[in-house]
């Protein structure tokens, strides 16, 4: 291939990010986090053995159901939380009725829970740490001047940077899954890839709950879908971070903006359905795995297809702004 080509440009970006050792830092944080969660799991199992004298999941699930019922009986809980508990109760009951263990012990289940919990905050945070200075860092260092006076069109340079964002998103997903599997397996065991898991519960904020479309999937298939959805969310966050990096010269400011986007998203989602048009905001649509889990979406009318469409629109918008600005602006 004749130089300069896109592959070479992506290699350049990977080289720059690689030598900044951000990914190494992220990996270390990941290992520490996963180790802590694994240890917590381990303690939980110990405790359960002590209390119930058995590890039978049916006993545990029954206990869970009774606990939830007791909490529902109390009058002091909020409506939204009550609904959440009711769905949880119905789901658990369904699992029990069909004799399927929702938390089949093993590393794959750990991966499932980690991705579903880390989707809206931890994974996007990691991609922001790796990517936030991909353009603004070059502005800070002044290297943008050398970069943009080479015989390569500006849009190609930004395209290479975006592809690098997508590449690192993929690497991040793979690393997360591998780290989760390797570490949690020490305590939980490494099997469970084919354990059945239920998906297709339909819940809505108005209180409807349906098991009409419920079907079982082997764990590995479910995980593939969950990681795929996590990839989409992380890639969207990475793309928005790229746009912010183009627009904001200061990397710290850029990270601040992205953090605000993430945190306000989780806050808005948990505040619930009063402000219905907030469902068009990108950061309210990050929790894609909840559709797979069958949890009620924060706002009526949100479905997986809806969320994907909203994310797609915001991504395209971010790319247009980033590319337009990057190719047009004067560099001082």
């Amino acid at each position: 291939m004749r130089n300069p080509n896109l592959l070479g440009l992506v290699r350049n970006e990977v080289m720059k990010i690689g030598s900044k050792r951000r990914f190494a830092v992220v990996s270390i944080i990941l290992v520490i986090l996963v180790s802590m969660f694994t240890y917590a799991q381990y303690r939980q199992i110990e405790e359960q053995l002590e209390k119930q004298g058995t590890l039978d999941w049916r006993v545990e699930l029954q206990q869970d159901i009774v606990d939830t019922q007791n909490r529902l009986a109390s009058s002091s809980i909020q409506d939204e939380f009550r609904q959440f508990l009711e769905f949880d109760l119905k789901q658990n009951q369904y699992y029990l009725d069909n004799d399927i263990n929702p938390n089949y012990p093993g590393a794959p289940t750990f991966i499932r829970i980690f991705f579903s919990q880390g989707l809206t905050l931890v994974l996007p945070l990691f991609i922001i740490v790796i990517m936030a200075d991909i353009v603004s860092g070059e502005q800070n260092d002044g290297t943008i001047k050398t970069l943009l006076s080479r015989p390569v069109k500006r849009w190609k340079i930004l395209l290479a940077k975006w592809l690098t964002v997508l590449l690192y998103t993929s690497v991040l997903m793979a690393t997360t899954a591998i780290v989760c599997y390797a570490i949690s397996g020490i305590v939980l065991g490494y099997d469970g890839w084919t354990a059945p898991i239920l998906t297709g519960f339909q819940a809505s904020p108005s209180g409807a709950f349906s098991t009409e479309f419920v079907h079982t999937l082997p764990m590995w298939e479910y995980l593939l879908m969950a990681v795929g959805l996590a990839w989409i969310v992380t890639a969207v966050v990475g793309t928005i971070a790229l746009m912010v990096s183009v627009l904001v010269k200061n990397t710290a400011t850029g990270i601040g903006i992205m953090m605000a986007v993430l945190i306000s998203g989780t806050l808005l989602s948990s505040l619930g359905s009063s402000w219905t048009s907030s469902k068009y905001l990108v950061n309210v649509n990050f929790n894609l795995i909840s559709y797979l889990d069958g949890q009620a979406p924060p706002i009526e009318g949100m479905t997986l297809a809806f969320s994907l469409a909203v994310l797609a629109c915001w991504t395209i918008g971010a790319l247009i702004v980033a590319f337009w600005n990057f190719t047009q602006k004067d560099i001082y």
Partner: protein
Amino acid sequence: MEPTVKLESVSKVIGKKTIIDNISFEIQPGEVFGFLGPNGAGKTTTIRMLVGLIKPTSGKITICGHDVRKQFVKAMEHIGSIVENPELYKYLTGRENLEVFARMLPDVDAARIQEVIDLVDLTARVDDQVRTYSLGMRQRLGIAQALLGRPDVLILDEPTNGLDPMGIRDLRLFIRKLVEETNLSVLVSSHILSEIELLADRVAIMSYGKIVQVGTVRELVDSLSPGVDWRVSDAFAAQKLLASSPDVQLAEVKDEHTVHTLMDIRKTGGLNRALLDSGIEVWTVERRVQTLEDLFIQLTGGDHIA
């Protein structure tokens, strides 16, 4: 011969402010072109327009016959540049930096990379991180980066910033040798006159976004009104009187007994009498050696220069 760099009535307006005001010049192959002006005169802005970092509001810039706006890639293939400081990736090694930029150029292989490393004499440290380099070494790596693609035009913006006198001398000899061997054009900007005087074949002087004069160093110096220094009893009174005369282009007080002027040497007799008539003693009248600095002060109206 076709000029390698050609600017035709180029202007840059930001908001209502004209940063670059209708400038035109050409650089020939094998020529070292000096770009001189006080800080803020528009040298760096002009250079950034040359390498496509800033779009001119009007006018046309061509590099080896290629329009920088319309044929950006073709034009940039002929240019190697250091804009302001040598802006390199500090967290990469010298060689990795060169590899990064080589992948952005057509036909630069590992052998060529080694060639430029040898050329700038950086072999010993090229595999160390750039953050550990001295400013002089960064400067040399910057030049290596600029030369990678065998350019026809080399642009060095304030290349001597931060170099010690030996480094400046080495750089000068290096550029001279390079021009003799490869016949490339070099554009060097500086706010330090002595550098440009020694290095450049031709000089353009910029002030407030305009090119006020272009010519060879010799031509420019010859065009000067001679400098005359007056040693007098009261320099401040003498300066007032001298400045009011139409024969004097510039009169400035250097110390309490000295006034420096730019004027026709033949008019000193009349002015001498006028000074004596107003009660100022004239001790000596001395013709000063002409330098580019005099011209510079004359043209830029005595702007501060380093």
